[in-house]
């Protein structure tokens, strides 16, 4: 089968890409191993709600239509939202098709799947930024008696060994949510806290994501920040989406009775060693939060919004009791690794990767001509790994794909053998116009 573009993965990113290709009149197919939004059906814990408020989770041409735009969708509601998108636009998705390999050929790519092989000029890898959990090597040193699971395996408290204490490793969004839920279920929970990002759920009577959007933080571009590698490694924010719009930082966990310790750094026999640097990381997170709130205050002042939003409120400093630097593991039955996720592309041609097995790309355009990635943290903008970021990134990439396909066609017509000439980016203004045209944010 021959088609100009194959998109691998029908999550929100792949669907957004498909939408832009349709708009650009580019023929394509979306291959999905499971059903649409597979990760939201199979890889989320039961109680999970989105962190981002519903009004924000817009895909190109499709915004939230429900009754609670300031609420937070459950995983099932997210699936339903994406199902509605499919019904509305009928993207060319083939479900139940697992891509096993993508190889460079003399004439583009061969996409080899269980259901057949597709020849194409362009492959868009939209298989998600959280294909697998990132777990530190010291997991191998835990006593075998202790059950281990990751945030991708965790579903509900009842799934765990009913006896013993629980150690949750990692205090980003997943870790704080899981620790909080387990403690509420009556378990004794300790959370090992490394570098983390703290933000209040709302500030001055607006959701924190409303502010991040308003002040332009989510639109910061990858080629404008100081150190993009570091920015891409940033952990997710300590937040939870609940009906109460409550905070879920270390203070909130402490009030619940969760014990905080420093980053898990070693295991020696039945003793877990924790970093003594917790106070430093906590102070750092408080400083960063204060800086962001200050930026919001300045934005309010310079835009004369004082009448519309609430008064400023200084954040409470984080208070954690002096933590032990070692834990006797004898008391613990389960360790939950909430130490982050990473993308994997086991099917992709080895030439696409660097020595650390990351796809080499510039803003989603891979070094390997014709290959594109989508949905990665800070790929083109700070919002790049959010549902609310896929539309713009996909718009940018679709413009690039169109130019690239034009080049390929010209090369073929001229029967010229050689390297496709460099594709120029559309101007920022053109991209912004295109994005505005298709973004439906009602």
């Amino acid at each position, binding site marked *: 089968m021959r088609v100009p573009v194959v998109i691998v993965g029908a999550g929100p990113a792949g669907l957004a890409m498909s939408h832009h290709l349709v708009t650009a009149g580019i023929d394509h197919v979306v291959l999905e191993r499971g059903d649409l939004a597979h990760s939201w059906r199979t890889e989320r814990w039961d109680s999970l709600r989105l962190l981002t408020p519903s009004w924000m989770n817009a895909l190109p041409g499709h915004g939230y239509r429900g009754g609670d735009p300031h609420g937070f969708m459950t995983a099932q509601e997210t699936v339903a939202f994406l199902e509605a998108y499919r019904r509305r636009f009928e993207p060319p998705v083939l479900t139940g098709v697992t891509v096993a390999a993508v190889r460079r050929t003399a004439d583009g790519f061969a996409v080899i799947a269980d259901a057949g092989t597709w020849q194409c000029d362009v492959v868009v890898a939209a298989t998600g930024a959280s294909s697998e959990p990132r777990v530190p090597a010291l997991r191998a040193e835990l006593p075998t008696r202790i059950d281990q699971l990751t945030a991708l395996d965790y579903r509900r408290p009842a799934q765990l060994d009913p006896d013993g204490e629980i150690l949750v490793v990692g205090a980003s969004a997943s870790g704080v949510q899981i620790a909080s839920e387990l403690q509420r279920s009556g378990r004794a929970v300790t959370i090992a806290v490394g570098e983390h990002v703290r933000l209040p759920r709302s500030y001055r009577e607006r959701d924190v994501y409303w502010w991040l959007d308003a002040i332009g933080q989510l639109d910061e571009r990858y080629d404008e920040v100081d150190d993009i590698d570091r920015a891409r490694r940033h952990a997710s924010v300590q937040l939870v989406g609940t009906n109460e719009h409550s905070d879920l930082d270390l203070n909130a966990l402490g009030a619940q009775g969760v014990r905080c310790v420093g980053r898990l750094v070693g295991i020696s026999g039945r003793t877990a060693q924790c970093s003594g640097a917790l106070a*430093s990381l906590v102070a*750092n997170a408080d*400083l960063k939060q*204060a*800086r962001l709130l200050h930026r919001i205050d300045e934005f309010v002042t310079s835009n004369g919004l004082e009448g519309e939003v609430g008064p400023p409120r200084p954040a409470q400093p984080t208070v954690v009791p002096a933590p032990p630097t070692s834990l006797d593991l004898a008391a613990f039955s389960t360790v939950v690794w909430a130490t982050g996720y990473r993308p994997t592309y086991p099917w992709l041609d080895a030439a696409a990767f660097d020595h650390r097995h990351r796809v080499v790309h510039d803003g989603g355009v891979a070094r390997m001509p014709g290959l594109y990635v989508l949905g990665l943290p800070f790929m083109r903008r700070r919002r790049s790994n959010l549902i609310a970021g896929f539309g713009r990134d996909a718009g940018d990439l679709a413009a690039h794909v169109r130019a690239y396909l034009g080049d390929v066609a010209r090369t073929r017509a001229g029967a010229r053998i050689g390297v496709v000439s460099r594709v120029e980016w559309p101007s920022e203004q053109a991209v912004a116009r295109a994005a505005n045209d298709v973004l439906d944010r009602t």
Partner: protein
Amino acid sequence: MTQTDAPTVDNGVNIDALRGARQALTDAPAAAQFQWRARCEWVRGTNSRTTITDFSGLGQEHAHRQAYCIEADHPEVFASDDNGATPPEIVLAALASCLTAGVATVATHRGVQLRSVKATVEAGMDLQGILGIDGDVRNGFDAIKVTYDIDADASRDDIAAIVAQSQKRSAVFDIVTNPTLVQVELA
């Protein structure tokens, strides 16, 4: 907080060279492998002298401009001659120096002129540990407290952020807060 434009401040830190080094070592990770060395010789009693002359890195051997000596001993209350600071005090010195170097570097990177930077380091120790009186008491410090007194062209928050960042990038801070595999053997 990303003032990386040409800084007009002078804290005696060559920030351009550091940025260049960071780029170079990103491109050539093998060159980033350094080895630090110290040679210690017993003098008499609890007195020893450590000499530091050379190290390796950037793919080659390097010598310090001159050999540096650190004298260590125990105080007279321990019936020693007090010919130098105690080894735990030298650890405190190393921590403070490392953090302070970081403060100067980060401040320069952020365009902040420093006028004075003073650190006081305090650390408690229960001697029942090293004397083997109580097996539940550890040998080392029970905690370390570093207090900075900094005079600089910046707000208190910005100064606090500089101090915080210096901890994030400090080798000795990492060494004292995280476990390190240590092997001691006979030559």
